């Protein structure tokens, strides 16, 4: 019964989401698209953090590489073809993930965190210092890619609503893929590796292969999000690969809760809205100028208070109620 209820709720949410642009202004529709792109980005990191127990602080590299791929390889005179630009962008991100993952996964714990950050910084410098991507100025994507088969245009995303629905579809597909993946034998093994890698190795699992596969898949999904990002605003610059992007998406995963897939989505929504709120003059008055301060403080407080993220709140409350029930009240002693 519970699962049918959940399915109905999910369907309702999806329908609401699909209909949102009809009721909302262009600004809010654009914001929703941004949230969905970051939700997909966060989901990809969720596979690493919540699925495999790998904390990566360099995930923005894959996001940015894919965004640059589609921007650099799109023709300037007309719309590029998504048929090869999208898979190409995803594969480019996966290639970088394969090479850096094979090296990074030789380290553990805190070294891994630092090494992933360093590899992302390396990619950042490639785009920042060289003429490859127009350097610090960034480059423009003049026409949104469309889906073409030979002469036929199957999908044109110029209209904001069309792009909105396309992004929503990508998000749902990505989420579905990850859900199925975690329920598969691969996902079960990954969970075991997260809980006790040593035990899994002793049983005969080649854990390195599993972790690398997870790393590459996560990179690919992040690349899909990067493609969407480039297509949305038509502008990419090196800051997409910067460490604060990596930190931000990690924050989304943790604040949303790494124990559940949908935690990443909740985290993306919450954090994007939080950022918008702190930057809004209407809500914050003059402090809106100093939003880094308020946002930074909010991060500190939230991480401290919500160790399991928002998805972990029901569990936290349940634990507290159970503890309260077991503990005898002082007066009865």
């Amino acid at each position, binding site marked *: 019964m519970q699962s049918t209820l959940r399915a109905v709720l999910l369907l309702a949410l999806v329908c609401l989401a699909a209909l949102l642009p009809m009721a909302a202004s262009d600004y809010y529709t654009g914001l929703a698209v941004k949230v969905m792109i970051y939700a997909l980005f966060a989901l990809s990191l969720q596979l690493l953090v919540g699925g495999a127990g790998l904390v990566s602080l360099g995930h923005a590299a894959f996001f940015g590489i894919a965004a640059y791929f589609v921007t650099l390889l799109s023709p300037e005179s007309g719309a590029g073809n998504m048929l090869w630009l999208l898979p190409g962008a995803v594969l480019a991100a996966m290639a970088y993930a394969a090479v850096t993952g094979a090296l990074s996964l030789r380290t553990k714990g805190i070294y891994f965190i630092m090494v992933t950050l360093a590899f992302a910084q390396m990619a950042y410098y490639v785009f920042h210092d060289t003429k490859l991507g127009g350097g610090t100025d960034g480059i423009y994507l003049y026409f949104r890619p469309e889906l073409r088969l030979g002469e036929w245009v199957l999908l044109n995303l110029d209209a904001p609503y069309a792009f909105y629905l396309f992004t929503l579809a990508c998000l749902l597909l990505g989420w579905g893929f990850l859900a199925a993946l975690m329920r598969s034998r691969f996902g079960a093994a990954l969970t075991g590796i997260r809980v006790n890698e040593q035990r899994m190795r002793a049983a005969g699992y080649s854990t390195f292969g599993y972790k690398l596969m997870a790393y590459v898949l996560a990179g690919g999904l992040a690349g899909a999000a990067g493609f969407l990002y480039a297509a949305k605003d038509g502008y990419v610059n090196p800051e997409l690969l910067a460490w604060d992007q990596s*930190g931000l998406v990690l924050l989304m995963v943790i604040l949303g809760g790494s124990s559940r897939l949908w935690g990443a989505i909740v985290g993306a929504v919450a954090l994007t809205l939080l950022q918008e709120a702190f930057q809004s003059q209407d809500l914050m008055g003059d402090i809106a100028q100093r939003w880094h*301060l308020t946002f930074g403080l909010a991060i500190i407080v939230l991480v401290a208070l919500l160790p399991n993220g928002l998805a972990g709140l029901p569990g936290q409350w349940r634990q507290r109620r159970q503890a309260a029930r077991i503990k005898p009240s002082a007066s009865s002693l």
Partner: protein
Amino acid sequence: MDPVIFLIQCLNAVQYGLLLFLVASGLTLIFGIMGIINLAHGSFYMIGAYMAFALQPLVAQYLGGGFVATLLACVVLASLLGYFLEWAFYSYLYRRDHLQQVLMTYGLILVFEELRSIIIDNDVHGVGVPAWLQGTVSLGGIMTYPVYRLFISLVCLLVAGLMYWVLTRSRLGMMIRAGASNREMISSLGIDINRLFRIVFAIGVALAALAGAIAAPVSSVYPGMGHAVLIICFVVVVIGGIGSIRGAFLAAMLVGFVDTFGQVFFPAAAGVMVYLLMAAILLFKPEGLFKQG
């Protein structure tokens, strides 16, 4: 390559490496002893530089002091700041896992950036080289080298020497070394752990701030300076091994040389060389060159 230019680049590499060592040693100490990964460490470097900029006129006016007095003021203030920060914030991080530490210190970076913006500003500034350190000096009659860069290297070497002396000859150093290899033991030895941690943290902050202040005349004072140095320092710590001061020194020198000569030979790929070095070392020694405990 011209031998004179080679020597000059070597001196540059040593100077850069020594500066990195100052910052990285604080980072590796804090992680080795207290188990905290501190993303905000780069901010202390930035704070040191901005302090040098802001304090220079004040020190001149109220204390009649010059550049060295400004540096000392920066170190004292930074130590106090570090001592306070450990009490107010970092002491809450010990029990938390690395992920939470990463994110909370990430938030702290944002706070520092904005506070600096409020207290000073967001502009790029220069700090003047004091008159008595200006100009160049002739080395062995074959070349000339900026006096100030030699000064930087000298100060860093002095501090490194002082650190070595404290770590190997003093009681404090003994406690620190014991803590770096076995944290649980030192508390059971009756040593006031809280005080020790606070002191170690203050030292770490002071080292980073001193590095920022002393580098200011050469690298100028700008908002993003903390981030770049932080990530390079992570590379230094990864290569050198966490908790190892000796490893940090060797790794910093290695990074200094690779970066400096990388810029000379491959100017287009300059920023990338250090990371390629890290990748190469990871292939053979995933736990760093001198892993501790």
